[in-house]
């Protein structure tokens, strides 16, 4: 149970009618690795996470979690292996923090198990992990954006999985709360050996917190490697369509980007319209 689980994506194609999204992705995430997925809007980052979480079926190729083909597992069995934090979530009127986090136990307890009362040690640990146990009885809808994101992270942690997928966990948050969420993820991954894949828009965060950066461009892997190898002016231009320079953090040594202006903004606009 405590063994780390890797993710193998093999030759995956996926698309919606008339709109291919992923055009042949091969990717192996090693157990316990912290990987950042980057790329422009619509390049297939979120789709790749959803495929890895078994929420979508690939048109071609397959996704393995450890040894298991995700599409062969039941919904509940998948949710016991992998937790996915979505980019945004709807309001949940009347639900308290503790109650929402408790919903993360569904995969482990099942529909009838959820009817039983009783505090679950995993729920208590998840509340503690993100530091929300002090206000666990407040309404989720009354919290600030940063607090809500921590609560949602706690819900994903309550699934007690070896693999954690995060889809833009820092969207809508101010810098303070962005760092807060990312540091929590880094800490938990170190403590428990979780395999983490997160979609990030901020290259600075990716370069600083991830061990490995995978860049997607038009449904294919465009670059893959340690931040120092991957984050280059070439990557900025090719994958993010930004002209910029790359330096080095004077203390930490991780790459730092100085982005100047979008490249060929007009051609790019023409292309998408």
């Amino acid at each position, binding site marked *: 149970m405590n063994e780390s689980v890797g993710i193998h994506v093999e030759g995956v194609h996926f698309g919606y009618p008339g709109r291919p999204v992923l055009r042949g992705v091969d990717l192996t995430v090693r157990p316990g690795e912290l990987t950042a997925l980057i790329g422009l809007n619509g390049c297939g980052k979120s789709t790749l996470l959803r495929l890895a*979480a078994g*929420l979508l079926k690939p048109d071609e190729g397959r996704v393995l979690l450890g040894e298991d083909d995700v599409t062969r597992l*039941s*919904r*509940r069995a*998948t*949710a*016991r292996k992998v*937790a*996915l*934090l*979505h980019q*945004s*979530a*709807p*309001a*949940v*009127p*009347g*639900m*308290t923090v503790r*109650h*929402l986090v408790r*919903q*993360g136990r*569904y*995969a482990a*307890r*099942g*529909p*009838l*198990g*959820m*009817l039983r009362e009783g505090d679950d040690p995993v729920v208590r640990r998840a509340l503690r992990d993100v530091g929300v146990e002090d206000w666990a009885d407040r309404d989720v*809808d009354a919290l600030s*954006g940063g607090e*809500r994101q921590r609560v949602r992270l706690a*819900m*994903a942690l309550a*699934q007690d999985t070896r693999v954690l997928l995060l889809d833009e966990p820092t969207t*809508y948050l101010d810098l303070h709360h962005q760092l807060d969420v990312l540091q929590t993820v880094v800490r938990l991954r170190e403590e428990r050996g979780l395999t983490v894949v997160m979609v990030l828009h901020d290259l600075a965060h990716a370069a600083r917190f991830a061990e490995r950066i995978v860049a997607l461009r038009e449904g294919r892997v465009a670059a893959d490697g340690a931040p120092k190898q991957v984050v280059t002016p070439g990557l900025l231009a090719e994958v993010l369509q930004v002209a910029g320079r790359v330096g080095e953090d004077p203390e930490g040594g991780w790459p730092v980007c100085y982005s100047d202006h979008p490249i060929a903004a007009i051609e790019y606009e023409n292309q998408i319209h």
Partner: protein
Amino acid sequence: MTRRFTALGVLAVVCAAVELVAGRGMSPGVVWDVLNGGGDATERHILFQLRLPRLLVALGAGACLAVAGLVLQSALRNPLAGPEVTGVTPGAVLGAVTATALGLAGWDSPLAVVLAACAGGCAGAALLWLLAGRGRGDPAQTAVHGVLVSAVLGGLTAMVLLVEPGELGSVVQWLVGTTEGRVWEHWHLLWPWALVWGVAAWLLAGPLTLLRCGDDIALAAGLSARRARTLALMCAVALTAGAVAAVGALGFIGLLVPHLAVAVFGADLRRSLPGAALTGAVVVCGADAVAQLSSRLLATALDSGRLTLPVGALTACLGAALLLLVVRRTPSRTF
């Protein structure tokens, strides 16, 4: 939480007591006498063969409609969902009326009425499902389509009535919703049905709570959202059909009582489903008592001995006002 249930239970007993003495012709003192074993044969008949079953049917139907409404609102993630605006109630009425008109069901075969109402309720819900198409996720769109479906089904019901007027009096009672003239036979049919489907709905409390969080979250947490929703809708349709077959289309109970229940008992459906059942029972029983009392007053004022106010007319008026409140308070934010 226990105190809230107790308080509501006390309220239910009070409403039930008022309901028992609210009818015409028997003073509270006489009712008390009869309950203690006194009274003459007529009084005993009125209380035990007419008022008691009527009271129980009112309680049961209210519970059914409220639970059905809470299940629908949770499964569809739509605060404006309810049996009457998702085509279930008008479909059930159409089924019951059609079956009666065709001679397949009637007052002498109440089970056939329940089954016909069930079939109609399913058909109504299916019609909305097809019509809403891709807009299913949007509460406002679903509500608009629901109004459309209800109008069409109401029109079809009117057509059946025009072609086959038959037992028009009893049919009109279905359209508005009334507990007038309900006897033990209705209760014996209602309670096992309500119990089975009510328990089924409660067993779905876990999946329903997750569905309230939205499909994305529910799926990621390991719930097969579509299957859970189908099961939940089956429960809601069956509960509504049972209530409609017993008392007709009582307006707004299924739409508004769930909001009251969630406000009082929270979003934990393990508690708010039984809470909704209790609240629905109290509301319908209380409304029926008020309807009977006002019928008495109106009858005296208008000097018309036969005038009776159907409880459905009262719940519809009450409900319209409350609905306005809900619509204004509905949040649309995401996080």
